[in-house]
């Protein structure tokens, strides 16, 4: 146990009774790079708690009889228990508690919207600030990753069953599914279309929010468990579902291919040079490391004035990446008001501190250009109309209010759709009218032995929901593999 954290040394393990008086200290602040400093680099913005800070934060927890935080977590991590372990200085024990439900604590601690999940329902939140559950989770995840690979908290791999599963896609859904099936003793191959595994964790979310060596360490751990990784395999093209279940002899297949197809608005000028989909902009930067050009070969157009269209995490990531590439001004153009932005509060705050300028209630109407290149974005001002049936006030155009934002780059972060590559080559796979895969609660699809989960089922959602779906499907896939024949 680190020095200086022995306060509350009367702690006994387990039990519902508080073992000490909870600390009344305010929420422990997260150390981070200053906005001025971080604008100029791609290093992680938040630096993480020290052991002392993690313990101090955990000590704020009331160890409630009825821990509402656990219900708030999409995969019901036993938050109360892992915080108790941290209070005791038993970090290994804390990691073990989390990993029962969530295999990627370093990732989720960084990117989960805790403010809408566990923290919003934390009992403390009624009167004070909630326990910073996500930050403590991240601390534990990082603590585990810093250990030697043998000393890390691995799930026991069960006796080999002689059965095999193919996992399509190596995003959070695929990673969670692969891990669970490997734990149950099945032999698992994970097929990834790109040259690197990780899905959105690698190609979408930027280094400054989720360092890529963390994702890599998690994938290394999977490989250590015996999961076989096959990159450069595009299912539907290199191999079809039929072939995986037939010639290739897999007993079951999980599809976790994400919702990766970028949407454009369909306004004039969208194909001018200087207009990017957020996916392209972020992929060039994160997956292909264009920010290190020419050391890395993939180029990126580094604009000086950038308009980012959208209000979600993807828009924030694009805007903040643009700043780091050297943009002088970055505008965020969103058609609703700030309260309605789906991005995480923390990301909005970070973006604002770094100097992103918010233009709310503006709807893009046209990208203007000269000689094939972007010169501006014309937008229409909106105002909030009467509340609709759902009580949400939808924006309506203010007639004749068009104005132009001068810029040389426009990044469209207005959503994604399902990629049809797999389903096109699998005629029997039932889809929704928007192209997402139809599944039962256990992830089963219309094809026997084929399961699916994550964004390809729900549409763009969250890392933890995708992981939850992957793990749930693994349970059903295990039953399918073990079925009497």
């Amino acid at each position, binding site marked *: 146990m680190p020095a200086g954290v022995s306060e509350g040394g009367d702690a006994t393990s387990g039990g519902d009774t508080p073992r000490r008086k909870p600390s009344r200290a305010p929420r422990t602040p997260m150390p981070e790079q200053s906005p001025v400093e971080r604008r100029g680099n791609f290093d992680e913005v938040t630096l993480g708690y020290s052991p002392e800070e993690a313990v101090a934060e955990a000590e704020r927890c009331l160890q409630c009889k009825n821990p509402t935080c656990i219900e708030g977590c999409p995969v019901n991590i036993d938050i109360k228990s892992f915080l108790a372990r941290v209070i005791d200085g038993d970090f290994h024990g804390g990691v073990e508690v989390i990993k029962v439900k969530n295999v990627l604590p370093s990732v989720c601690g960084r990117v989960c919207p805790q403010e809408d999940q566990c923290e919003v329902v934390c009992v403390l939140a009624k009167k004070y600030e909630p326990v910073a559950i996500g930050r403590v989770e991240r601390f534990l995840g990082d603590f585990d990753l810093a250990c030697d690979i043998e000393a890390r908290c691995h799930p026991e791999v069960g006796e080999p069953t002689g059965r095999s599963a193919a996992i399509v896609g190596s995003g959070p859904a695929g990673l969670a599914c692969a891990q669970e099936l490997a734990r149950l003793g099945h032999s698992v191959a994970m097929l990834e279309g790109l040259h690197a595994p990780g899905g959105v964790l690698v190609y979408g979310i930027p280094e400054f929010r989720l360092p890529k060596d963390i994702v890599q360490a998690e994938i290394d751990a999977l490989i250590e468990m015996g999961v076989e990784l096959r990159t450069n395999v595009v299912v539907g093209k290199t191999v079809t579902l039929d072939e995986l279940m037939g010639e290739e002899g897999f007993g079951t297949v999980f599809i976790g291919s994400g919702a990766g197809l970028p949407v454009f608005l369909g306004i004039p000028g969208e*194909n001018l040079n200087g207009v*990017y989909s957020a996916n*392209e902009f972020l992929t060039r930067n994160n997956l292909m490391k264009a920010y290190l050009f020419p050391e890395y070969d993939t180029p990126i157009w580094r604009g000086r004035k950038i308009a980012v269209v959208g209000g979600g995490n993807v828009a924030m990531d694009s805007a903040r990446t643009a700043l780091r590439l050297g943009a002088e001004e970055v505008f965020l153009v969103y058609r609703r008001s700030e309260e309605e932005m789906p991005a995480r509060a923390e990301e909005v705050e970070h973006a604002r501190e770094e100097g992103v300028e918010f233009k709310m209630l503006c709807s893009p109407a046209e990208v203007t250009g000269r000689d094939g290149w972007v010169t501006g974005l014309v937008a229409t001002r909106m105002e909030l109309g009467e509340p609709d049936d759902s009580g949400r006030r939808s924006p309506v155009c203010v007639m004749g209010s068009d104005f132009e934002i001068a810029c040389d780059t426009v990044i469209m972060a207005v959503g994604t759709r399902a990629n*049809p590559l797999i389903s096109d080559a699998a005629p029997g796979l039932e889809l929704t009218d928007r192209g997402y895969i139809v599944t039962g609660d256990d992830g089963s699809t219309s094809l026997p032995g084929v399961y699916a989960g994550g964004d390809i089922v729900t549409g763009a959602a969250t890392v933890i929901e995708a992981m939850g779906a992957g793990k749930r499907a693994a349970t059903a896939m295990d039953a399918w593999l073990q079925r009497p024949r």
Partner: protein
Amino acid sequence: MFPIVHKRRLSRSVYEMGVQAPAIARKAKAGQFFILRTDEEGERIPLTFSDWDPESGVISFIFMRVGKTTHQLSHLETGDALADVTGPLGIPTHVDGLGRVAVVGGGVGAAVAYPVARAMQEAGSDVTVVLGARNADLLILEEEFRSLGVDLIVVTDDGSAGRKALVTEPLRELCETGAIDSAMAIGPTIMMRFCAETAAEHGVPCVVSLNPIMVDGTGMCGSCRVTVGGETRFACVDGPDFDGHEVDFEELMSRQRVYTDEERLADAEYTEECSCRLE
């Protein structure tokens, strides 16, 4: 890693290479492409299959040295390996029931035209190939086309081989005389544009194989978007073949120039470092 199993120089700046990639060789079809990365720092670039053999698991392709990645590729030899090869990507060229068809291959486009003409021939079409290049030095695959047994018309800009003409001249004659029912043009964008216009003047359908800048090649980024018939399409998944009469070539050519400055910088740095003096 994907081992290189053969390499041959076809002209001053054009090479043929074969790579061991069994899963892809089993699936490839005429007109499809793949994406490669030479090494960990490399760019993902698309190239079309010139040939493939499911038995030996080898895919072949022909590339022109135009910038850093293709320059690097030109220095790799049998026994070296590529970091990544992904495919087959794109929709195969439609080769069935075409009747009398002209396949126009210009420059390195001949590499793509070759498997396409062969597949059309095998599907029972009556194939005429118009093979064009700036000069005799840059003319590739003449022998290979000849051995297919198709009607072959060779043209060069300067007359150093075959007829002194642009590819559009024999294409115009074929259209005028009613010798073909449709055409397919593969080559530099400007050439495809003029071929499509020439065919359009005579009411002959003309398919073109587009080559916009790509990243993933699986529909995920939209870098490859082109306007066809007023609609945005992704060439990597909806193409690369499109109706040449409907393509916005002006936009495509502009989009192909986005990274000109960066490309020049990358290639200049690499050329200095590799000091091959581009013999």
